[in-house]
């Protein structure tokens, strides 16, 4: 995880919690419960042949576990967008999926170079994607807004010139209970 002690001035943080999920999200981070299943996969910089595989693996597992199709779609879209973000914008990183009986917690950690302005990055249409990434159909500036739209909690910590950590929670039922 990130070392908060060395990141004071340039560290930026973003929190979003879907209204009504405050208690469930707080409980998740407070209890530090052991997940039932954990999956981890590497995401390589600009590897658009492999990017998306990790999210597909998570989706297939959740499908086998019987997660509701609409919730499954939300998790798949958020995971895929986050995985593509790491491949498109960072020097590479990893994704970790912790699955609990009632929820999934996914963490995407990269090796930099960090998001200069998270608020700006959250604006629909804002993108720093290069030409190669855009030619593949990415870079519409909708990745982070799309993740926010599909998750119950989204937390981003980034430091300009250093790594970014993005984590989200999605509950398997519609009230977070």
């Amino acid at each position: 995880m990130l070392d908060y002690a060395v990141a004071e001035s340039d560290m930026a943080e973003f929190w979003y919690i879907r209204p009504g999920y405050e208690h469930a999200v707080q409980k998740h981070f407070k209890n530090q419960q052991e997940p039932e299943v954990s999956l981890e996969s590497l995401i390589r910089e600009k590897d658009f042949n492999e990017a998306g595989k990790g999210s597909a693996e998570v989706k297939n597992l959740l499908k086998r576990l019987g997660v509701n199709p609409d919730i499954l779609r939300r998790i798949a879209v958020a995971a895929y967008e986050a995985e593509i973000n790491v491949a498109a914008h960072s020097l590479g990183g990893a994704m970790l999926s912790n699955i609990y009986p009632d929820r999934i917690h996914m963490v995407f950690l990269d090796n930099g170079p960090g998001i200069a302005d998270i608020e700006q990055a959250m604006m629909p249409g804002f993108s720093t994607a290069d030409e190669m990434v855009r030619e593949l159909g990415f870079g519409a500036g909708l990745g982070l807004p799309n993740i926010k739209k599909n998750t119950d909690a989204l937390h981003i910590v980034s430091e300009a010139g250093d790594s970014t950590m993005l984590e989200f929670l999605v509950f398997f039922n519609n009230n977070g209970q």
Partner: protein
Amino acid sequence: MKLSDIVKILDAEVLTPEVNLDIEVPCAFASDLISDILMCTKEPTLLLTGLTNQQVIRLADMIDIIGIIFVRGKKPPAEVIEMAKERNLPLICTKNTMYRSSGLLYNAGLRSCRI
């Protein structure tokens, strides 16, 4: 409307002849932006696109895409066709533009997907 009807309407070429085209298509969506496709596909949907890279097939792992029409004569590379065959995903190629293809299908009664 069946996928086999769509092939006729668009005067299209089927790139995955081994995949069944006798499937009902309830609606369609057309875009070259992956985030838009992810955001708008909430039910089984036919996708019209000019994107021909591997990610367009990976999209079908995430959301319910029942077939892909490549517009304005674009053809994906062999490895992309191979990935589609592994997933039993029909790939179809038409010389029509995205606008014209969408118009032809809409006129024939194929509705837009719910967004």
